[in-house]
C-alpha cells in the first residue's frame, strides 16, 4: 500500500525578485527512493531548505505523514512583488525551525558537506543523538544520565560500524577523505533516527568506484533503517539505477516526473540538459 510520507503543494520560493522555485508540487511515498534532478541553479537545494525549515516558502504547503508542517502565503512587501501562482489559495502560516523538523524524523545531508569539522567522527554522530536525550542539563552535568549516555555511545558506535567508519571513529572529521566525509554525514543524519532522509548530492566529489558503491549502500540503509529517501543527484547512472521515481526541475519549475524510463526518453528533459554536461558538475 502506498502511503505518502512527504507532500509539497504549490511551493513557491521567491528571494526578492528571483523565483527560485515556481509552484512545485511533489510526493514521496513510504519506502520509496525518489530523485530530484535538474541543472545547476534549478532550485533543488532550495526545495530541501524549504522542507527542512531553513527557509519559509513564499507560498504553498508541506505535509509530512499527512500532517501540515509548513504553510505560508505572500505577505508584507512580498504581497506586491509576488510573481508566483496560486496567490490566495493558502491562508495559514505555519513555520518550523530546522531542529523542529529534524525532531519530526526528517534528516538531511548537505551539498557542501557540513560536518563538525574539528570534532571526531564519533563525536559527530554522538551529537546527533543529543536531541533524543531526556536528561536536562543539570542531571547531564552531574552524570545522572549515565545509562542514557552509555546507550547513546553504543548506538553511535553501532552506526559507525554499519557505515564502515569504525576504524576512523577517533579521527578529526575534516581529516577524513572526501568519500568518508560523505558517509559520516549520512551516519550523522541516521543517528537522528529519521523516517525520511534527504540526500543533497551524496556522490558529489566521490570517485567512480565510490559512486558505484553508493547504489547498493543507499539500498542497504533504506532496508536496514526502514527509510524513505529523497535524493538530489547529478550522476545519471546512479539516478536511473536507484530511483523508483524521478522529478525534474528546471529554472524552478517542474518539467517532468515519472519512472526512470519515462524520464530517460522525455524530450523536454533531454533539452533542458542539452549542452549542460551536468554529469560531473558540483
Amino acid at each position, binding site marked *: 500500500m502506498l502511503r505518502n510520507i512527504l507532500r509539497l503543494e504549490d511551493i513557491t520560493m521567491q528571494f526578492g525578485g528571483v523565483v527560485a522555485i515556481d509552484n512545485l508540487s511533489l510526493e514521496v511515498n513510504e519506502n520509496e527512493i525518489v530523485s530530484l534532478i535538474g541543472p545547476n541553479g534549478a532550485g533543488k537545494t532550495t526545495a530541501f531548505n524549504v522542507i527542512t525549515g531553513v527557509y519559509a516558502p513564499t507560498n504553498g504547503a508541506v505535509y509530512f505523514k499527512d500532517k501540515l508542517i509548513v504553510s505560508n502565503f505572500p505577505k508584507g512587501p512580498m504581497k506586491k512583488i509576488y510573481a508566483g501562482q496560486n496567490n490566495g489559495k493558502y491562508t495559514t502560516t505555519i513555520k518550523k525551525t530546522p531542529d523542529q523538523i*529534524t525532531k519530526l524524523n526528517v534528516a538531511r545531508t548537505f551539498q557542501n558537506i*557540513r560536518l563538525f569539522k574539528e570534532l571526531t567522527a564519533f563525536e559527530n554522530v554522538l551529537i546527533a543523538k543529543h536531541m533524543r536525550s531526556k536528561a536536562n542539563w543539570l542531571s547531564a*552535568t552531574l552524570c545522572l544520565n549515565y545509562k542514557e*549516555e552509555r546507550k547513546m555511545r553504543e548506538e553511535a558506535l553501532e552506526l559507525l560500524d554499519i557505515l564502515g567508519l569504525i576504524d576512523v571513529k577517533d579521527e578529526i572529521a575534516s581529516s577524513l577523505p572526501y568519500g568518508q566525509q560523505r558517509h559520516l554525514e549520512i551516519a550523522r543524519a541516521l543517528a537522528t533516527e529519521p523516517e525520511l532522509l534527504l540526500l543533497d548530492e551524496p556522490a558529489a566529489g566521490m570517485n567512480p568506484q565510490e559512486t558505484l558503491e553508493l547504489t547498493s549502500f543507499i539500498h542497504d540503509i533504506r532496508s536496514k533503517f526502514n527509510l524513505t529517501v529523497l535524493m538530489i543527484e547529478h550522476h545519471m547512472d546512479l539516478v536511473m539505477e536507484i530511483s523508483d521515481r524521478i522529478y525534474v526541475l528546471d529554472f524552478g519549475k517542474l518539467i517532468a516526473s515519472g519512472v526512470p524510463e519515462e524520464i530517460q526518453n522525455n524530450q523536454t528533459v533531454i533539452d533542458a540538459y542539452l549542452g549542460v554536461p551536468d554529469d560531473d558538475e558540483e
Partner: protein
Amino acid sequence: MKTSKNLIYSLILAVVTLALLFFLEVNKAKYGMAYTVLTKGIILAVVAVSMNLVTGFTGLFSLGQAGFMAIGAYVTAIFLIPTNSIEEVYYMSGVSPAILTFKTWLESTPLWFQSLLPYIALTAGGLVAALFAALIGIPVLRLKSDYLAIATLGFSEIMRAIISSPQMDTITNGSYGLKKIQGFSSLIQVFLIAAVCITFMILLIRSTYGRAFKAIREDEIAAEAMGINLFKHKSLSFIIGSFFAAVSGGMLAMFMRSIDAKTFTVSLTYDILLIVVVGGIGSITGSILSSLLVTASKEWWLRFFDSPLYIGSFQVPLFKTGFRMVIFSVVLLLIVLFYQRGLMGRNEFSWDGLAKAFNKLKSKSSNKGGSKIA
C-alpha cells in the same frame, strides 16, 4: 593499566597541591606574594573557564564578564559585611532599609546557616547574574550571535554606571564602594570553591549538552539540522557562564575585602579575555594554567622591572614604575605571534600528552645538529 597509572599521577598531583596550599597557609607571612598570586590566579581561573565555556566551546563572543562579576561581587559583599559594621560602611549616605532588614534577618538565622553564608552569598550572586544574563540573552541570542559582544559590553558599562550612580548610594555606597567584606578562611577554601566551580563546568562540557555547545560552535546550520535548538542551548551556555563569572566576582570581593565600581571596568574583561587567549580558546586546563601564569607574571615575577636597576653606579634607564606592563605586553605579543592558538590550543592537559611532549623535547635535543628526519 594505563588509566590507573594516570589516576595515581593525578592523585599525587592533588596531594602535592594540597600540601603546598597547607604549607603556604602556615607560612603565609613569609610567602605573602605567592599566597596572593595563587588566590587571585585561581579566582580569575574560574571566570576564565566560564568565558571559555561561552566563547571557546559555544562560539558566542560575550564581553560582559566585568558586569557579571560586579553583580556577583556586590551581592556577595552585601551578604558578607558583618551586620554590626554595616552602618559604618554606609556612613556617607546611609544604608537602605531593605538591606538593613535583610541583614538583621540573617543575624537571626541558625548558626549552621550562618557558617554556610559565604557559599550562599556566592551562589546568590551567581543567580542574580544568571537572571540578568537571561534578560540580555533572550532578545540578543535570537538574533545572530555577533550582536552578543556589543550587547554584553554595553551591559557591562551600564552596570558599572548604575552601581556608581547616586541613586544607588544606599545599596552600593556609590563611589565609596563596599568595605569590611568577610574574607576567605584559608587558601584551601579558595581552591576548593574554585575546584567545585571548574569541575562543574568541565562536567557540563563533557556532557551531551557540552557536545551540543561544540556543535553550535563548529557549524550552527548543521547543529540545527541535528535537532539542536540554537536559542535554548546558546542561552543555557551564556547563563551558566554568567553565573560562574559572578561567582568569581564574589570570590574577588572576598579576596579584596573592599570593592568599588572601578574594579569592574572593561579592562577587567580584557584581562580575562587575554588569559583565555593565552591559555588557548577551547582549553580548560589552558585557561587555568594561563590564569596562574598571567597573574604571577603581572603581579610578581615582572615586578623586578618596576624598581630602578643599577649596574655599578649606572642606573639602567626604563626600569621604573610601569615598565613591567611594557614587558608584559611584549611577552603577550610574542605568545600570540608564536603560539597563535595559545599555550594549549584546544588540547587539554593529560599525563600522556605531557609524556609525549617530553619525549619530543628529548628527541629534539638529541637530534640537534644531526641530519633531519622527515
